[in-house]
């Protein structure tokens, strides 16, 4: 048998160099028939010898995709390594030489440090997790906490856009890894873009413009990344749809930022009341609910009807400053002389009902969002829901 194996190898080598089959097998007369049959079988393989050459552009495209995938996987390595380290960690066995008694305080300190390390390690590991990871909810919670502690609009915008970038990267990574893109990611992305725009609207004007420019640039970068991801991602309808929707949301945010740069007042009106945070009063806002004095009373009466001025139901500045208004009544809480106090009948004017739908022209109207039904402009989307703030903003837009 060994002889046959060696003989075959020898004959194969000779035939490969151009020697005839007959001459090659003639060296092994006792094995000639068997060797010939094997060499004939080998010759039949020649029909498979050619494989069509690949076009250079196809090769280059595949190479780009491979390296793109590699970059996405590289970003995941940190979390995997950390988790592995955590998983491999075991309590060290106590050595025989170690004293049996360890003071209680020392044990407590060790336990405390270990708990802290584990929590810290888990939180650190969670930062690179993806939505299908159990650590992802920790990552989102950490982001929520960080957002809550961001007090000034500049910080809020930077954080919201940073988190939105993270959502974009997560989508890219999931798409490339052929994993489904969870709805959670899209909703968070939407919510964070809305939060960034709302936060920008809270800043005074020069700062607001700077922040809007920041939102615009970051959204532009994210949009480009998502376009690229769509090219590189597998052609699965779910994945492509999710990437496309995210790209649209980012494009819309970019458009909103641009509109804010063009018309800051309109932008501010659209967004300033959506965040739920107290609004810094503007001169107009403070004037709106002020109980009319005899001097101020005369002016609105002459123009639009005095009874409208102190009724705050369609002026959101008033609704967020309850110290000025008695809850439920919409009336000033003081006994300061208003239209009623002065004895002026409320219905003196031609139907001055204080509802937004009937909004008669009044001085305050320039600073209130009456122009937008429901107080939300829709952001050009036509959805009627507008760009949301933090209060459920993620679910408002389709």
């Amino acid at each position, binding site marked *: 048998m060994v002889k*046959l*194996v*060696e003989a*075959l*190898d020898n004959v*194969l080598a000779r035939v490969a160099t151009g020697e005839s089959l007959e001459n090659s097998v003639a060296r092994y007369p006792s094995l000639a028939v068997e060797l010939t*049959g*094997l*060499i*004939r*079988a*080998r010759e*039949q*393989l020649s*029909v*498979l*010898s050619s*494989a*069509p050459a*690949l076009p250079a552009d*196809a*090769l280059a495209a*595949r*190479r780009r*995709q*491979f*390296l793109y*995938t*590699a*970059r996405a*996987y*590289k970003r*995941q*390595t940190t979390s*995997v*390594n950390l988790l*592995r380290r955590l998983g491999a960690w075991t309590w060290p066995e106590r050595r025989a030489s170690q004293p049996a008694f360890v003071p209680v305080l020392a044990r407590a300190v060790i336990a405390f440090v270990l708990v802290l390390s584990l929590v810290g390690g888990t939180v650190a590991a969670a930062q690179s997790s993806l939505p299908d990871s159990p650590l992802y909810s920790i990552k989102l919670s950490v982001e929520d906490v960080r957002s809550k502690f961001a007090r000034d609009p500049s910080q809020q915008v930077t954080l919201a856009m940073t988190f939105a970038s993270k959502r974009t990267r997560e989508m890219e990574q999931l798409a490339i890894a052929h994993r489904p893109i969870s709805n959670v990611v899209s909703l968070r992305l939407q919510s964070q873009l809305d939060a960034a725009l709302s936060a920008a609207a809270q800043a005074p004007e020069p700062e607001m413009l700077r922040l809007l420019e920041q939102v615009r640039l970051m959204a532009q970068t994210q949009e480009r990344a998502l376009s690229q991801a769509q090219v590189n991602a597998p052609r699965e309808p779910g994945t492509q749809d999710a990437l496309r929707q995210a790209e649209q949301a980012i494009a819309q945010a970019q458009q909103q930022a641009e509109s804010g740069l063009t018309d800051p007042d309109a932008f501010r009106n659209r967004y300033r009341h959506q965040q739920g945070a107290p609004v810094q009063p503007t001169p107009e806002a403070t004037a709106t609910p002020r109980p009319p004095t005899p001097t101020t009373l005369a002016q609105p009466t002459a123009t639009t009807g005095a009874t409208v001025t102190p009724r705050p139901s369609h002026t959101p500045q008033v609704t967020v400053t309850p110290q000025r208004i008695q809850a439920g009544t919409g009336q000033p809480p003081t006994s300061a002389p208003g239209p009623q106090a002065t004895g002026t009948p409320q219905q003196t004017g031609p139907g001055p009902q204080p509802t937004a739908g009937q909004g008669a022209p009044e001085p305050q109207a320039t600073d209130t969002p009456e122009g937008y039904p429901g107080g939300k402009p829709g952001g050009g989307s036509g959805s009627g829901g507008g760009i949301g703030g933090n209060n459920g903003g993620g679910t408002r837009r389709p």
Partner: protein
Amino acid sequence: MNQDETLLHRARAFDEQALGQIYNAYFERLYRYAYRFVGDVDSAQDIVAETLRRLLEALRDGRAPNHLGAWLYRVAHNLAMDQHRQRPAEGIVSLEPDLDQADEADTEADSEQRLAQERVRAALAQLTPEQQNVVVLKFLEGYSNAEVGALMNKPEGAIKSLQHRALAALKRALAGLLMLL
């Protein structure tokens, strides 16, 4: 440390240059290898792309192979076999000459060639995975016994034995298929 080991060492850290070199070194070889089994350019490319993606996955998860070439060929081989198993009927259908679309003489020659290819592929599929590997790497890719041994992580003597058993099995399989025709 040979070149593959050096590349693998750098690839573990996701060194993009090393990964690019691995791609350059293996994509076309693996493509030709997969094509022998599946006989379709797109499928063969997909198999290689999936093989390389699995390599990245292994590197990410800390499961990097010890022998890069052997690992890549094994994964590509498994994927090609899966693919081949999934489309036996398709292969037979594709042998039907399409008289409406091509010159008759060319079509006849083409279909004969394709018939022969499918017959050899079918015979190849009856071999054990190791035998298939030896046949393709040595007789179609042109590697020496030593190179096949390195790729399969086996000594040269074992490759010679495998080669003998593979050709004997191929001879039997081809004879069996001829009897069926």
